[in-house]
């Protein structure tokens, strides 16, 4: 392994280089561009052998990736924000077609108002599109997820596209020291892509067809099953990854000081680091606080979250997202899981970081303080709340 000083985007591109996608089709959009630029350089200098397609839009980027996947090629694309929304039709198409494409999404706010900075409304609005969704905390995890993503997506029990989310700028543009695995190790980790779900010149097939009411629901059931199966394949991938690379990950969620915690913040993405730091600070004052970091929003770790927080008295979801007219989408998902898996815990929702607004350690301390009072509210950091 080689230590390199890389941004999140560059680290992710290194992970993709090691995964050897055969076709790359992507359209530039801030803050994702650097991934695509790096990959085009890797193709140029032949450190990556791949067909690099200069598509004219995000819709075509994903459509092209589907065409490649439909002939059995490993395909990669990347986007962000408006681009993700522009290709939204293709998201459902790729998952329904069971094409295990990997896409990096640089989380960015969506217009209007225009804004290039990070929040997670773009990807969270597409939770129902049938993709695996991961959220990286730092550049190392981003690289490792890039490499693991194909293992998970292409697994026969899964066959589902994978959206790897990196917080725009905060993660995509921030430099860290990253371990870059050797090519030989990566090849040992990641098997070649094989699939029956393809057009085959020797045994012709018809793909991406219609299915009426008598059959449609069965395809949808199997699609759901595939996404659920990803949970065990994520564990399997991380086990093998740890064997080869020595870095161990924790499945759908990561818990931090939750065992005896009375109050827990559930969050996702790059903000988790600051929440952990704040927890450390409060722990010094003997406050029993902890963090659950959601690593995968799909498949949703409902059971794991409920298990991690069941002994707490109150949890707060901190998320960079709002489902207008309701509450944060992560909160909706978490509450449903708490109820379903019998965790009797009060909960509040804190909406922060919209359009890149900074979330400070003081904000996080304030959240831990507010939930002491056992209130249940949906509150915009810096503005106020609405009693439920």
């Amino acid at each position, binding site marked *: 392994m080689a230590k390199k000083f890389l941004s999140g985007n560059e680290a992710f591109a290194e992970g993709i280089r090691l995964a050897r996608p055969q076709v790359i089709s992507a359209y530039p959009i801030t803050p994702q561009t650097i991934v695509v630029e790096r990959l085009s350089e890797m193709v140029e200098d032949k450190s990556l052998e791949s067909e690099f397609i200069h598509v004219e839009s995000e819709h075509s980027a994903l459509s092209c990736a589907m065409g490649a996947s439909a002939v059995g090629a490993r395909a990669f694309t990347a986007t962000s924000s408006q681009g993700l929304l522009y290709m939204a039709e293709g998201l459902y198409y790729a998952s329904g*077609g*069971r094409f295990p494409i990997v896409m990096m999404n640089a989380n960015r706010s969506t217009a209007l108002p225009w804004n290039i900075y990070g929040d997670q409304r773009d990807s969270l609005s597409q939770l129902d599109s049938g993709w695996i969704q991961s959220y990286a905390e730092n550049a190392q995890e981003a690289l490792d997820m890039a490499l693991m993503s194909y293992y998970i997506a292409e697994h026969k029990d899964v066959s589902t596209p994978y959206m790897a989310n990196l917080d725009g700028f905060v993660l995509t543009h921030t430099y860290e020291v990253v371990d870059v695995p050797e090519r030989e190790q990566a090849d040992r980790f990641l098997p070649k892509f094989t699939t*029956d*779900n*393809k057009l085959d010149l020797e045994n012709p*097939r*018809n793909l991406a*067809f219609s299915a009426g009411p008598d059959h449609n629901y069965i*395809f949808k059931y*199997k699609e759901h099953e595939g996404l659920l199966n990803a949970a065990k394949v994520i564990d399997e991938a991380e086990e093998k990854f740890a064997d080869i690379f020595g870095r161990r990950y924790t499945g759908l969620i990561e818990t931090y000081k939750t065992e005896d915690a009375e109050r827990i913040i559930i969050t996702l993405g790059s903000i988790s680091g600051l929440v952990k730091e704040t927890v450390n600070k409060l722990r010094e004052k003997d406050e029993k606080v902890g963090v659950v970091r959601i690593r995968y929003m799909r498949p949703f770790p409902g059971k794991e979250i409920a298990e991690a927080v069941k002994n707490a008295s109150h949890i707060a979801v901190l998320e960079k997202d709002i489902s207008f007219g309701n509450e944060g989408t992560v909160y909706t998902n978490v509450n449903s899981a708490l109820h379903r898996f019998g965790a009797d815990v009060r909960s509040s929702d804190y909406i922060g970081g919209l359009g890149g607004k900074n979330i400070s350690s003081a904000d996080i301390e304030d959240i831990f303080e507010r939930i002491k009072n056992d209130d249940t509210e949906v509150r915009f950091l810096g503005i106020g709340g609405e009693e439920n």
Partner: protein
Amino acid sequence: MRPYLREKIPSSIDEIPSATAYEAGYLVTKNSGWRNVRPVIDTATCVGCQNCYLYCPDGVISIEDGKAKIDYDFCKGCGICRTVCKPGAIRMEAEK
């Protein structure tokens, strides 16, 4: 060769593939019920010129032993074959 009728209609959960991918040219229903008229070849007049074969949108006409032959399972009775038949060897008859 052409796509042909199969006996097995996949219907149970085990028979339905997990992806939208299946054997090419897999037919389970005919189109014969669409017709209210059917083309009939007068083999004595047919010169085997292949015009009907060429212009049939459904591809149901083949030339065998120099004469046009129709696959009535899939003919929809559009009548294009009669229109393009120069010797006038095709007539349309009402389906009973």
